[in-house]
């Protein structure tokens, strides 16, 4: 195969340069994939939420509590199924270097509400039975080296004092968007220890038909409008979106930077590839002399550009995918479910293709159209 040995010879004629070109393409695409994944992860978090779950918060501000007595009133309402509630605990563990969210929940109803949090049956039973029991995300086992059955003590910030919990079980999220580094414990335990004020941070309830969401939300808010703690009800998705949009312009920023990065490195790389093709004018003239057709030479130069960008793309995009998957990266809990999506891989491949065309076509055309006489003369 004359064609392939020529291709190989071309790639290896300056190993250093071929390596550098491939490496810079790989780096550009790696960075592109990483930055875009930040954007897609935030977007996925904003999209997450069952259309059948609604969240009720205090309309004055989500940090203000609601009376826990609302649970019964919600359950009694038409169209509302399971009702559960949770409180933000805000405790510190150890030196507080690694933050994680802790929630006081009503165990049975909360786990029933979130089938996405899978817990082994025996651990679930143990959690239900033990009033000071806690259910933790599987990532926390690795982060702190905890074991099931172990006792841990947190310092409360909102609810002062030392709080000791026994780890009864570990949950595994079946949907990557759910944080795998949270801690759940009994709402009863919290309520009892702080003197039974009977407060819930927010309620979550399930409705039978998603179409009813707007109507039921309004009914709930009307019901509590004139009470001391009026409510704001919306879909779980809107609730999550309000947190995701708190990242503000970070997504826009990441996109802009990502594009600038890719563009910058590709400019430089395309230039280097074109220059390396140009200095081979004489070789191409020789090939023409010994009978290579114009089309053949065009293909040869394009194939070289294609091979270099393809290897770079596979390394960069594949590297990003494997790295984040392999290290289970989630930015210390801020970006759960950080995974390079297929669309990112496709767009990345598209960029590689564009790079191949941008850097390959000019020299390939030049090679194909090169008049032998001028080419040979121009060298010496």
């Amino acid at each position, binding site marked *: 195969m004359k064609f392939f040995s020529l291709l190989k010879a071309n790639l290896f004629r300056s190993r250093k340069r071929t390596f*550098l070109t491939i490496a810079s393409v790989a*780096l550009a695409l790696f960075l592109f994939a990483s930055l875009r994944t930040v954007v897609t992860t935030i977007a996925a978090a904003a999209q997450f939420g069952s259309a059948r779950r609604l969240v009720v918060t205090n309309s004055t501000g989500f940090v203000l509590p609601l009376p826990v007595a609302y649970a019964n009133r919600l359950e009694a309402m038409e169209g509302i199924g399971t009702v559960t509630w949770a409180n933000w605990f805000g405790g510190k563990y150890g030196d507080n270097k690694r933050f994680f969210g802790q929630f006081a929940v009503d165990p049975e109803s909360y786990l029933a509400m979130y089938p996405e949090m899978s817990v082994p049956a025996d651990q679930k039973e143990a959690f239900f039975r033990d009033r000071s029991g806690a259910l933790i995300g599987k990532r926390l086992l690795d982060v702190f080296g905890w074991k099931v059955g172990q006792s841990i003590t947190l310092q409360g910030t909102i609810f002062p004092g030392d709080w000791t919990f026994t780890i009864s079980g570990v949950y595994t999220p079946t949907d990557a968007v759910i944080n795998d580094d949270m801690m759940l414990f009994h709402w009863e335990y919290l309520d009892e220890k702080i003197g039974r004020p009977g407060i819930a941070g927010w309620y979550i309830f399930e409705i039978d038909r998603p179409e009813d969401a707007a109507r039921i939300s309004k009914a709930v808010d009307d019901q509590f409008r004139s009470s001391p703690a009026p409510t704001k009800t919306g879909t779980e998705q809107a609730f999550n979106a309000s947190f995701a*949009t708190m990242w503000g312009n970070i997504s826009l920023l990441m996109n802009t*930077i990502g594009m*600038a990065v890719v563009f910058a490195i590709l400019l*430089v790389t395309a*230039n280097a590839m074109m220059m390396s093709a140009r200095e081979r004018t004489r070789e191409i003239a020789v090939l023409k002399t010994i009978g290579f057709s114009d089309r053949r030479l065009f293909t040869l130069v394009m194939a070289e550009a294609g091979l270099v960008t393809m290897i770079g793309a596979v390394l960069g995009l594949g590297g990003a995918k494997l790295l984040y998957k392999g290290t289970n990266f989630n930015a210390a809990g801020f970006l759960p479910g950080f995974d390079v999506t297929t669309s990112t891989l496709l767009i990345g491949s598209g960029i590689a293709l564009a790079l191949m065309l941008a850097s390959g076509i000019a020299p390939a055309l030049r090679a194909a159209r090169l008049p032998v006489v001028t080419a040979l003369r121009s060298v010496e």
Partner: protein
Amino acid sequence: MKIPIVYNIRSLLGRPLSTALTALGIALVVAVFIGMLALANGFAVALKTTGSEENVLVLRKGADNEMSSGIDRASTSIIASFPHVKQGADGAPLVSPEVYVVIPMGRITDTTTYANVVLRGVSDKVWDVRANLQIIDGRRPDAAKNEVCLGTKLIGRFPRTGVGEAITIAGRPWEVVCHFTADGASFESEIWGMNEQVMPVMRGQVFQSVTFRLADAGAFDEAKRALEGDQRLQVDAQRESVFYAKQSELLGSILNILAILITSIMAVGAIFGAVNTMYAAVASRSSEIAVLLTLGFRPVSIMVSFLAESALIALIGGVIGCLIVLPVNGIVTSTTNWASFSEIAFSFRITPGLLLTGLIFALVMGVLGGFFPARRAAKMLVVQAIR
């Protein structure tokens, strides 16, 4: 003998497309580099200027931010009676017990989502306790009415923020009576109302923090000991400046790590590109190099000349990069301060120091990128090169 720099300039001009592409590549890297640092810088400035060295912030023991803290009225009076608290011109202590709540506000741009904005109840002494406050429009709110003063960063980002208009908090209208600035501090992203009005609609008879001016700025340690040692109080005292510096730590370090990570990967890519370009430049000019050698220029001069050429491209790129990034200076962006779950707005801040850093960064990329190709040029043998 040195090769005149004119030679390099002519070489660059002789291949305008290639020079432009390389310079533009480096320009973008430098622009992103400066832009990211300007962002981190703006954020740091916003939170650093928030706290004053001379003020003490008191929170409930164990609470690490205002949101999780709570201080009752009795404790507030005890704190105000301490001798370490500076007295105002009228003899009253310069102390501001404050209510801190995060409330949802509809955005102007996207009405389907809410931003969480800080609503701070303050005492009428706050304008003296915090020295960097300045009311730029309107008058101070009246404690007897539902009136608020808005930080300037809220204006234009949320509806009905003009003086004379009214925003809705807790289901009732509050008249906007003034706008204030605070030297770029995060207070500029907050809504301030008077305690007398804010407290009843929010958390009941509890303040979240107490801030006071030290009578003697150097006597912080004494004040801290006295407050924390008092049997009647369960509080932690810290300098206001230290508190806000700590609040910015998390996001600040995220921004800095991002800046370093992204730009170092970019820089490596750009250096690879520069190396490649210079290798190609050296290869295509081998006969020129041979002529130079024949003319009697020493290999060292050739190496210096090629390095200078690479540095020159990078420097041009650096200057273009600075020009590209300059317009972002002052643009207001916002993100969440996760320590308080509230939105904080801040501006990109480009300083001359950052521009200089960017130029040096470009120069380093150029020199690193030019080194090996320049060495190759210098090592060429006349016979081989001229062939």
